[in-house]
Each structure stands twice: as C-alpha cells, then as structure tokens.
C-alpha cells in the first residue's frame, strides 16, 4: 500500500508562519528539528516521547494540518508539499475522538464516503455495516455518539477514519482518555484490525509501555528531534542515548571512568567512592563512559559486580516488587521477587548485562 517518508522535516513557529501581533516579541519556537524517518508499507510505527517532544506536530505534518518549514513528506515517493489534508487520503483518529455530535454513529462513519467512493463495489450502507462489524459495534449505527461509552466512541472514530480505505492511518493518543484495562483491550483490538487490513499506521503516544507493546518499530522523540528509531526490543535493550535509556522502561544509568581494559572487559570506577565494576562492550579507547543496567539484571544471587543499595521506597506491583534506592550516590531501581527485609539490599550484575550508552576519549 503506502510507504511514508519524512526527509529533513523541521517546523518553526513564531517567525514566518503565524502572524504575530506587532510589538509582541515571541521567541521563535522550534517544534521539529530535522526529522528523518521511513514507515514501511503495512508497518505499525509509533512516535513516542514526553509531552512537547514534537510527536503530535510530526503526525499533524503527515496529515497536512501543518506544513513543514523545511523538508518534505512523501507518500510512496509523491511529495505532499502544498497538498491539503482532504486530498491526502489519510484516516485520522484524535485523542478527543472528535465525533460529530449532530450526526448518528452511522452518519459519522459514512461521512468520508461523501468524498471518496467506498472500496470494491460496496454501497455506502454496506461499507458502514462492514466497518461497524470490524470494530464490534454491529447495530449501533442509529445511536447518537453521546449515548456511547468512551471506548465505543473511540471505536466509532476508528471506523470513521477507516471507512474510505485510506492509504495511511494516523492515531494521535487515541487511548489516553480511557482507563488502563479498557486501554489494553482496545490496544489488542487495534493491533488485530491493523494487521488484518495491513494498513500503514502511525501511532502517537506518550506511554512508552504502550509503544513497546504495540509497535513494529518506534521512534523515540525528545525536544523536536528523533533520538532513536528501532524495533521495540532493540530500543529497550540497546538505547542509543541517556534520554532513551531513562525514558523507555525503568533503568539504572551511571557514569564511570575507565581504569583498565583487557580487550574484552573493562574495569570502570563509578560514583563518589570510585567503586570498581567490570563491564563488557566498552570501546578499547574509551576513557569515560555512561552505561545502563536494567532493574531485572540486578539480581541478589549474582556475585559479580556486587552493589549494596540503601533502600528508600518499596512498591508492591503484584508479581514483583519495585525498590528505589541509592548506591554510591547513583539512584538505583530494582525489581525483586520478594520485598527486601533490611534497610539495605545486596545485588549484582553480570558484565554482559550492562549496555554502554556513550563513551568519550578525553
């Protein structure tokens, strides 16, 4: 179907685009900085990051609600510059659902069919019925949107976006107004529909766990820039930057000075007391590094790289407990099967469990 590509897309507010009233000197705000990404045909691609990172602006640029200041958006190689949203053939679902309150559910779903013929010889009514079935809302066509629950409204919005069989499906935080349990079930339903239709999808969320769970690939964004693009497990295991390491999942990040390197493993001095730890994967010429170890890799039974953690808080999560504390002035988070009994807790990690985020030679 469609391959989406953004090349060098930047977006600035405040100078040329919006006309500001005279005398009001508004600092030029950079919303997007040189965003490059390719979403493959049929892929479920997620933009994830904290609020204000530019993920929604990116999505709105793809949909055509914003024009990039520089750079191009192409659908299957066709540049979209100057193409208004109504001619881009995209389906959009918003966080607020934006259902038309004066139209019934069926009228909402059929709205896009006024402008684009329903696919493959179906009548409008048949297409509406098909879509309502797809989202498990058979027989709800005559209702008013206001009569539906949040989850149902969200599915109507999805059906409406999909009815004209768009090239691209764009979802802007479609689940964030729903409660956690409903969110999970809708997420599975969305996943199923997306792979059934095999439609290229861009999904925006601030919830990194959701992004990891649902995506084929994801891009982590921060301050208008893409920090890392990759498959969920690669981004989780091998974050490219300190921001990604700390944003995606719980993590323990520390800085150290390389004091010895035997070609395979390095000895690194960490924290106030310059405690020595042994790490694998450190470049041989590095003198200073930042590394991270996932909480799950810090185990009580591991004897290598022993750390004594001063415990501050313990959260009961059901199957596990999450423990926050400090070791050697480095904040530490642990995930243990049983809550620790004392005020300290000894854990260790294998040299291969650590991932070096960055290194420098000075």
């Amino acid at each position, binding site marked *: 179907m469609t391959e989406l590509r953004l090349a060098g897309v930047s977006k600035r507010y405040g100078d040329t685009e919006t006309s500001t*009233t005279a005398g009001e000197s508004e600092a030029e705000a950079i919303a997007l900085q040189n965003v490059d990404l390719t979403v493959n045909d049929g892929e479920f691609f997620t933009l994830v990051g904290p609020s204000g990172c530019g993920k929604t602006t990116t999505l709105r640029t793809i949909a055509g609600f914003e024009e990039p200041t520089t750079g191009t958006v192409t659908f299957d190689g066709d540049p979209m510059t100057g193409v208004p949203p109504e001619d881009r053939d*995209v389906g959009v679902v918003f966080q607020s659902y934006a259902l*038309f309150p004066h139209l019934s559910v069926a009228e909402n779903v059929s709205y896009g069919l006024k402008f684009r013929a329903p696919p493959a010889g179906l009548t409008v009514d048949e297409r509406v019925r098909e879509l309502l079935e797809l989202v498990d809302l058979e027989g709800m066509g005559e209702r008013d949107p206001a009569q539906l629950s949040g989850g149902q409204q969200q599915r109507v919005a999805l059906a*409406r976006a999909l009815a004209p069989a768009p090239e691209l499906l764009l979802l802007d935080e479609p689940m964030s107004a729903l409660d956690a349990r409903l969110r999970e079930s809708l997420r599975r339903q969305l996943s199923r529909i997306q792979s059934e239709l095999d439609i290229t999808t861009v999904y925006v969320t601030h919830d990194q766990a959701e992004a990891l769970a649902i995506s084929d690939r994801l891009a982590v964004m921060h301050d208008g820039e893409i920090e890392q693009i990759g498959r969920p497990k690669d981004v989780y295991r091998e974050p490219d930057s300190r921001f990604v390491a700390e944003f995606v999942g719980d993590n323990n990040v520390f800085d150290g000075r390389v004091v010895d390197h035997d070609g395979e493993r390095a000895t690194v001095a960490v924290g106030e007391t310059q405690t020595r730890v042994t790490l694998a994967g450190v470049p041989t010429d590095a003198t200073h590094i930042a590394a991270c170890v996932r909480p799950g890799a810090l185990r009580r039974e591991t004897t290598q790289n022993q750390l004594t953690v001063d415990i501050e808080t313990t959260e009961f999560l059901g199957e596990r407990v999450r423990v926050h504390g400090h070791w050697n002035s480095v904040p530490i988070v642990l995930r243990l099967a049983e809550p620790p009994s004392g005020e300290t807790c000894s854990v260790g990690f294998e040299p291969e469990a650590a991932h070096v985020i960055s290194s420098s030679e000075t």
Partner: protein
Amino acid sequence: MLALLALATAAVLAVMLYLPTGVVLVNAVVEDSIPTLAPFVDVLTDPFYFGVLADVFADPLAIGEHLHALAGWLAAISISVGLEYRLPLPFVQFELPIPWVGVETPGVRQGLFGFTAYQAALSTIASVAIGLPAAYILANYEFYGRRTLRSLTILPFVLPGIMVAVGFYAMFGRSGTLNTILGGVGLGPVAFVESNPLAIVILAHAFYNAPLVARITVAAWESVDIRAVETARSLGASERRAFRDVVVPQLVPAVLTGALLTFIFTFMTFPIVLALGGLQLATVEVWIYDRIQRLDYTEAATLAVLETILSLGLTYAYLRYESAQTGLSQAASPPPKEALFPDLQTVLSPRRLAILGYGLAALILFVGPLASLVVGSLTDGSGFTLRNYAFLLERQLEGESFQTQPWPAIRNSLLFGVATLVVAVPMGVVISVLTVRAGRSGTIIDTLAMLPLAVSGVVFGIGLLQGLVFGISLPGGWQFQVTGAVAIVVAHAVAAYPFVTRNVSPLLSNVDPAMVESARALGASRFRALLDVELPLVASGIVAGAAFAFAISIGEFSSTVILASGSESYTMPVAVERYLGRRTGPAIAMGTLLLCVTAASFVVIDRVGGRYEL
C-alpha cells in the same frame, strides 16, 4: 469561498457602518469645505455643554487657577448631623425623629455632558443595587421557575425603549395605575413623573440594566468552583471568610463588567429620556436629536463625534476588561443551590422575608410598567374603555395620509424586522467565523465589528441620513443614494449583527478543532467542513442571534425616528412617540400593540428553541 464572503461582509460594513460614521465626522470638522476644529472648540468651551469643565478646556494651562477653584468648592462643602422629623418620602405624613446626615455641596454647573454622565452614574448605581440581590437569589437558591426567570433576564434588554418609557408613564403618570391604587386608599394623586422625572428615568434605566447586571453576575457565580470554597474552608476559613476570599474576587470583575456596560448604555440613552423627561432632562443624545429637528446638522455632528469618542473609549475599556478575564466556563462542580421555600418555618426567617420583600419590589418594578401599559390602554381613569383602540381604528380607516396610522407602522415593523434578519444573520455569522478563525488577531476584527455597540442610534441615524439618504456624489457624475426604508433596514442590521456574532462566536470557538480536522482528513474542503460540521453545531446560537436581530429591529427607535421623519416608513416605536406628543391614551394603546408583537416574536423564538446570550 470564505474569502469571498469575507470581502462581501467587509464591503457591506464599509458602506453601512463606516461610511455613515465617517460622514458624521467629516460634517463635524469640515465647514464650507474647509477643515476646521472651530465647532469642537465652541462646544468644549461652552459651559452649557461642559459646565465647569468648559473653563478648563478654554484655558487648560491655567492649572493654578483651576486648582484654586476646586479648593474653593471643596471648602464650601458643609456636613451637618441633625434630627429630621419627616420621612423623606413625598406622600408620607408621619412625624418621626430620624438621624439625618446633611451634606450640602455648593452647586456645580454640570453642563449637558456632565448631566448625561451624572444620570448614567446614578442609573448604574441603581442597576447594580437592584441587580445584585437578584443575582444572589438566582445563583444560590432553587425554586420553581428559576431557569425561566434566569433566561427572562435577557428580555428587558430587547424590549423597545419607547414602549418601556410609555409603560413607566402608564404606571407613574398623573392618571397612571399607581395613582389609581393610591386613590383607592385615599392618597394622592402624586405627580411622580412631573415632580421628579429624573427618578423615574433612573428607574426605567434600572428596568433595563439591572437584569443585565444580574445575568452577568449569576454566570460568574455559577462558574465558581465549590471545591475551591471547600478547600478554603478546610484550610481554616470561616464560611463568611471563604466567601470573601474565594467567591467575591470572582464576582467583582463580573459586577464591574455589568456596571461598565450599564454606564455605556445609559450614557447613550435616548427614547426613555425623550419620552419621560423631554428637553428638561436632555442628555447629549436627546439634544443631538433636537438639533437635527432644527436642521442644525453641524452642531449635531460635532456633539455626535464628541459623544462617540467618549463611548468608544468606554467600549474599548469594556472590551479590554472583558477579554482580560478568563472565559467563564461552567465549573466542574458549581455551588449547590438551596431550596428557597422548603417549609413554612424557613419562610419566616429574616433572610427569606428579605428575599420575599425584594421579590415583591422587583415584581412591581419589572411587571408593573408592562401591566400598566395593558391596563392603561383599556382604562381612562374612570373605568374600562375601548376608546383608545377605537381611536387607532378610526385613524386607520378615516385618517389622512399624512397622519400616523397604526397598520403601516405594524406592517413596516414586521417588514423591516424580516429584512434585518436576512441581512444581519449572514453578516454576524461570517464575522464570527473570521474572528474565531483568526485567533489572537481576531480581537482586532472583533473590536472593529463591535463598533455599532459604541455608536449610538441617533449618531448613526444622522450619518445614514446625510450619507446615504441625501446621497453621496461619486466620481463620474454618479450619485449613490438609498431610500429611507433601505436606510432604516441598514441601521437596524448594523445594530443587530453584533448580537448574532456574540451568540455564535462562543459556540463556534467551543467546537473541537479536531472535528474540523477529522472532516478534512475524510475529504471535506475547509468550506465544506464549515457547512457540515461547524454550522450545525452552532445552529442554536444562530437562531438566538436571529431572534435578537428581529427583536432589535422591532424595537429600534433612535435611528428610525430620524430616518423616518416626514416619511411613511415609520415603525411602531416611532408611531408610539408621535402619538405620545398629543394623546397619551392612543400612545399607550399603540405601545400595547408593540408589546403584543414583541411577545409573539419571543414565543416563536422560544418554540424554535433559541438560547439567548448577550
């Protein structure tokens, strides 16, 4: 498409609003095709217009002298405390010792502008004093008919001014209903209107503006989040203290907004003063009208420009102040409402008795004049009569064509009302769309488009008369000229479209932008999205705006009376005024007909399901 509509609206505004206003300005500063400020200097330095301030304008640099005069005036104020043995009411004879603070100020020559401001200030005080208790009751108590009463607070605002004036006359006049009642218990008659016309004028202004103050204040009161009050209580504030610290700061801006609006409206008052006070109580507006009647256009224009500058300043202050306030959104949890009369015991508590007393007084003030209008049209001081209506009928059947007849007035009123609606509704909607779309720079469009609120009907009437009706020469020997009837519709449409805009804009800006974007992503053009999504969602506002447009056209007096003078395009309010000069009976009957037409149009609107916003 939208750009085209915008251009059309701008063109209509230019011809209908800015051209006439410009003509007035040009008339004021151009004499024998030579630009001059002499008329302004004449007016500003004439004590007749500016009272004591005229000296200051005449010689603004003699500060010492002016300060000396001010000090002399302050020194002459005397304050005395004594016992008074008579209630300060005109018809009560009791001898009671009442402590009385006497403040004697030496007379100040106010001049025409000073007096206009003085009566506006008194009217504002009266409106706030009468409006606040109503706001308190409507915001804090639940009772049968509260919602209806709340939406009725908009009603006085669109009632024809001349009709209300006649209503007050029918109530307080020498043979009015109040005197009939007083006569029944052996008192009076008291010449209310004749002995203290200012008090009656102020009361009539309160009739208009107290509901306005109440309406704005109730909206603010109901948007107070009760959680904030509860937070203050939990932090240790007493009930009274929490009210003072949390509720009052949120009410004050609303009350000030209402007061400012009241001041603006009453500063530009015309039909009420004309009908109840005449030239004896002339305000700037009445005086301008009088100048026009005497064909003294230059002086009228000069006064009009001065008045407009003042009211524009006030309106600008109002708009600035209004936009500085965060929008009044319905709070998540508004304060709870207490039942007003849960049981007999509560009814007898002092607070409930006070509310009852206030309610009774309000009933007299608000229903009295309208009821008196109807009663007055059917009585002649001695009993029931149909004479007044018979006179109207006779005038219709046998009157000469130069005489004012009832049917042409009714027909013209309805015709102009519909024409106004047709012009004002599209204009108002287009301006709303442009304002909301423009976002921040929308305030500029908003202010420009709201100019009619600041330009009085009389001023606008002269502009239209001199600009469009007398005709403007265009290059190439063309002449741009319209008839009186067209000019009247223009005047009404310009007065009405801000109300359409004010009803539509809030709804329009509440439409989730994501809805429009959804429609566009589904293939609708921007204009199509406007038609399919935004307009249906603001339909109730458009209906309400249309209702306003019609009601304002029916009641408009100030510019109509100028534009219809000596012609046959008079409307019902103009007919009322023409009868009032000679025969009060038929005027009251004509006012009653006007009341019926106005009431009927409101019933229609209510059925269509409008909601009214100001």
